[in-house]
């Protein structure tokens, strides 16, 4: 019983990080209809940004987080403005291929610049933990969970309650109507992609604190984010949180009761089942 409780806590905390990883992907997918296969590579860049801010400037990882987000926002903005906007009306398959290409290029450049050495962001409190109702709660995971919740909430506020957020959603729903109301889609797309990249940067920062970093972590993270996006659905940013938590808990339980070698099989198996049974996600409106 004690063990089950601990596993559930592990799963929830892991799920929070998962949700943040998927958040940017879901935003870009939902608004721009681009499945950004380079999303994981952007997370990886966020992790390196945090690593260099931490080791080079002694910045605390949580202090480095807004900076890493700002850097990634600029990069995302440029990628959309200079590359993706040129093909935004192309069939989805083309944008898939382009983002796939971007992933390969970013990963390769990262290896050239950062080397293939394994890195960790290791502040003094990285290993700190406390007991809560008999379960060990790792401090950084809890903080990461809090940041994930906060950013999800902030994104929801932004999209639902600001003029810019409403413009972004309007563009996704009806481009012509949005244009008639004076929205500049190019600018808006770039902003959206920038925000998506900034969220990837935040996820990367936290990922570096709990895990190890190397240039190749990207593709695996894209896969995981993709599964969460499908499971949660693309309708609302809050749903991503549900998808992330669901996957985190299922993986933690799978590792314990079925075997750790089956976690990927189960999580992608769920993805397949969700696509068949509820293609709009667990919480999405069924068509």
């Amino acid at each position, binding site marked *: 019983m*004690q*063990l089950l409780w*601990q*596993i559930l806590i*592990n799963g929830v905390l*892991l799920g929070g990080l998962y949700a943040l990883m998927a958040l940017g992907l879901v935003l870009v997918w939902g608004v721009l209809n681009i499945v950004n296969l380079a999303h994981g590579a952007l997370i990886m860049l966020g992790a390196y940004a945090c690593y260099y801010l931490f080791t080079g400037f002694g910045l605390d990882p949580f202090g480095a987080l807004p900076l890493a987000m700002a850097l990634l926002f600029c990069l995302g903005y440029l990628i959309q403005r200079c590359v993706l906007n040129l093909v935004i009306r192309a069939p989805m398959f083309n944008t898939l291929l382009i983002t796939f290409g971007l992933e390969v290029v970013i990963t*390769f450049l990262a*290896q050239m610049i950062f080397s*293939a*050495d*394994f*890195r*960790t962001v*290791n502040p003094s409190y*990285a*290993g*700190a*933990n406390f007991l809560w109702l008999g379960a*060990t709660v*790792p*401090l*950084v*995971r809890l903080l990461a969970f809090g940041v994930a919740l906060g950013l999800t909430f902030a994104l929801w506020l932004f999209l639902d309650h600001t003029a810019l957020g409403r413009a972004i959603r309007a563009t996704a729903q009806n481009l012509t109507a949005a244009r008639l109301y004076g929205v500049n889609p190019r600018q808006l797309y770039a902003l959206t992609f920038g925000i998506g990249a900034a969220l990837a940067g935040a996820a990367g920062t936290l990922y570096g604190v*709990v*895990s*190890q970093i*190397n240039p*190749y*972590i990207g593709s*695996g993270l894209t896969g995981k984010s993709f599964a969460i996006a499908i499971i949660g659905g693309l309708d609302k940013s809050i749903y991503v949180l549900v998808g992330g938590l669901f996957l985190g808990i299922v*993986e*933690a*339980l799978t*590792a*314990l009761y079925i*075997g*750790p*070698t*089956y*976690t*990927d099989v189960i999580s992608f198996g769920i993805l397949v089942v969700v696509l068949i049974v509820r293609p709009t996600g667990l919480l999405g409106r069924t068509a």
Partner: protein
Amino acid sequence: MKQLFSLLLATTTLLFGKPLLGAPIELGASVQLTGQFANTGRYYGDAYQFAIDKINAAGGVKIGSTREKLVLKMLDNQSDVNLSVRQYVQLVSQDKVNFLLGPFASDFVLADSAIAEKYSIPMIQGGGASDQVFSRGYKYIFGTLPPASDYFQSTLDLMGQLKPAPKTIALLYADDAFDVSVADGTRKAIGKTSMKIAVDQRYSSKASDFNSMLSLIKSQDVDAILVAGHETEILNFIRQSKTLNVNPKLYAFTVGVPSADFRAALGQDANYAFGMTSWVPSPALKDDYFGNAEQFAAEYQKRFGYEPDYHAASAVADVEAFVKAIEAANSVDPAKVRDAIARVDFDSLYGRIRFNAVGQISLPQTVVQVQKGKLVPVYGPKGAMEKALYPMPAWGKR
């Protein structure tokens, strides 16, 4: 002049196939220079080139009365097994290299050695230790890593001598060819001791989250954890055992611990981790080309800017084994050289190179431990060396 030479070479090649004499001896290899295994793959790429440069500087390979230079034809397989198989096919069928050096990792060697066997071109590899590589009756594959099933033997010998003796063990391993072989061998070896396996878990090779496994281990209160996996997983494992406050008396890992990269990434948290290496850069290991292992390590560090570990030493031994075998066969005929490789017996900076009936060498693993940020050998073939720090203090008391 250069054009004339290549024209000449092309003509001889056309007339006689691969020129048997009068051309440099080409060694082909497909190595993980980029991709997820690049971190370890670089040892092979750098060490092959280093050994070949050194051998050429010493005059090359003696065949009859002439001396031939070695040439390395190296391709980057981008850490993709399927690509590496295609590259080895290209190396033997298009580039027509004389002999093959191996890639890193058992999964790759398992696939690539089939090409060597099919084309009857000898491959000496220092990257694949899985027993599976050598259990298929292949004649053209030789390996300079000790058998995977023996990896934890010396660690278990050490554990038998520790006080208070560890009683229960958690065995975790990744689901690739090498680590499954390690686990099979370790399970048998533990069976011969008085220790018991309390947790026996196989995990997915790309796993980054070990929280469930660590929670299980913690709830069972095991004395020792043995992990057979990859360096990325082991880094995550150690970090997460700290955050979950998992405190066994010892933990030991197949890979990672001997590399400088591992200690740099973990800092103080690397302390107390046990690992193993089939190679310690000691001046006692004499070598025809590098003097001894210590000199090799220093030169390697100077040239490439990072410390070599046993992967690099093993790769050098592969090249040297070819030189010895070609000189003994006095020919570059693949079949003759293959038979000569089976008979080589020489001392190298890596250790004594002599292949058994299935083509693998046997080298005892030296148990190492990170103590105050330094790598210290604690148990070797002749028994205890420096004192092992045991039991390791709880995370909160360091």
